[in-house]
């Protein structure tokens, strides 16, 4: 069974009179444990696709099955539960809560899920140690370097042990070396079984993934896993 199955996905934005087809006729299947890079020029629909996968956005047409379950028909609260339990997000701009410490930021998904404080503390301590942040537990985001911030964000994204980790340009705000560290960290998580989907316009990073999805104008131009089945030109 596929972890993710998208069929006939359409996402249309209306900007005044003009209509933008951010995603068109999209059919993709991703298996559990895969390492996928979504690539393509700016405005090609990469982020829109990732937001759909993360249930932050709904398609205008098509269906999305996550772990065999049609998630497009779920109520907002049910979708929130899926995000809480099955999906981890890593953003380009880290999105740490500035007033909370590293430990509190990492604990945030567990707090929202209603996990008792004692259990949270234990898991946060372990996670911070795993990501080499145990000296930074009490530091606020503005006291951390960019690489440290993104590691806190990754610790937060994985603390609920989601089925899939979605990363939108995770190295976009980092220098080369720090970015590579972050990529290695994500790849290590993938090696331990976590499905990893990275959006990037950096070919170097993209080529590291075992599978590449090339987007262009909302269309899936090339899927390295299915070279022959690339979408025809309209």
């Amino acid at each position: 069974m596929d972890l993710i199955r998208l069929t006939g996905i359409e996402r249309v934005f209306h900007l005044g009179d003009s209509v933008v087809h951010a995603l068109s006729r999209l059919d993709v299947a991703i298996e559990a444990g895969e390492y996928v890079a979504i690539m393509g020029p700016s405005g090609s629909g990469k982020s829109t696709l990732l937001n759909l996968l993360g249930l932050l956005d709904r398609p205008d047409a098509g269906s999305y099955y996550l772990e065999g379950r049609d998630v497009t028909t779920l109520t907002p609260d049910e979708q929130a539960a899926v995000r809480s339990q099955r999906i981890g997000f890593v953003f380009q701009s880290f999105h740490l809560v500035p007033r909370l410490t590293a430990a509190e930021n990492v604990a945030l998904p567990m707090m929202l899920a209603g996990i008792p404080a004692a259990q949270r503390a234990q898991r946060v301590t372990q996670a911070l140690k795993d990501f080499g942040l145990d000296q930074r537990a009490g530091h606020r985001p503005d006291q951390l370097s960019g690489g440290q911030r993104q590691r806190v964000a990754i610790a937060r994204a994985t603390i609920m042990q989601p089925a899939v980790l979605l990363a939108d340009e995770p190295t976009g705000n980092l220098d080369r070396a720090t970015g590579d560290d972050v990529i290695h960290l994500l790849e290590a998580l993938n090696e331990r079984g976590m499905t990893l989907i990275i959006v990037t316009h950096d070919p170097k990073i993209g080529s590291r993934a075992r599978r590449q999805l090339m987007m262009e104008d909302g269309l899936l131009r090339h899927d390295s896993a299915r070279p022959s089945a690339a979408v025809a030109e309209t």
Partner: protein
Amino acid sequence: MRKADVLRFARDAATAYPLRASLSVLAMAIGVAAVVVLTSLGDGARRYVVEQFSSLGSNLVIVLPGRSATGGFSPANAMTTTPRDLTVDDAAALTRLPAVRRVAPLTAGTSEINANGRLREVVVAGTASTYLEIRSFKIAQGRFLPEADWNRGAPVAVIGAKIQEEIFAGRPAVGELIRLGDRRLRIVGVLKATGQGVGGLNTDEVVFVPVGIAQGMFNTHTLFRILIEAKSRDQIEEVKREVTATLKTRHSGEEDVTVITQDAVLATFDKLLRALTAAVAGIAAISLAVAGILVMNVMLVAVTQRTAEIGLLKALGARGDTIRNAFMAEAAMLSLVGALTGYGLGLFGAFVLRQVYPVFPAYPPDWAVVAALVTSLSTGLLFGIMPARRAARLDPVQALMKH
């Protein structure tokens, strides 16, 4: 999300922006403090007046010369000049009425007291032995005026506590001779200090003499008041009717006196001052509404400031109602802290008022305190709903892009 976590999250969010938090707290505090202080003032005035009138004595009916036009009480009526004399014989006639327990005639004027080598101006009240019980006064030394024929009266006097202090420097005064105008009188008693006075007449500064003596001194036959004590509270109205009828007969069919009861006076003042207090509370409550609007704006700013954070919380699995509750909790906390601060400030303000005006019982009425706290909390929550719902409804993708 657990309740304790919602509260902690809201508290941390509120304290992370101290300026806007303290602004809402301050606005709410001023509103509540205004209600507490102003109602303390209003209710203090009411209690002061009620106490002063209660001290007149129980079951009291007062006859004033002159007909009040409306029949109601007003300070102007109380000052009406005499169209027809109210005499000692009128007072004596009232003594025989069935519902009447006691009657005291009262005539008043100013004179000079000369004793112990000192001289001062005093108010002289001419009355009778019954006056003491009717007014519920207490004797400090000696006794009050002796029972006697109201038209004559022995050359004796009872002095107020302050006069004893000023003329005799606190030494026992009973038995001393004084000069009061052109009369030589012997002091038979000193009243206990009351600290009270109605209409500028502080009883501690009065010299009481038999009504006959006072009328002789001031060369008049007129009474200033007749004080009557009814046999019971239920009979006050009866006394009022009987007195009016009797005096009408005695004054050749003309109703030329005003009969007022303590209850009526009290009720009028009580009603008036309660209304005043409520009005003042209402005006102060407007500041609570203003504070509520401020809290709303502060929360709207918070939602705008923290849009990206709200998007993040949604991405991390927060439900809409979780976010709404967190923002409502924050608004409620700001209001609650503001309300409690304001309550403290208000109590302190009332305390200062009581220090500055010790006779004035400036305590906030319970209803005002409850109303102020409930209003501030509910306005805080009410005005918190809109921003909280706005936060809960934010589109996560849009929200996350705001950074």
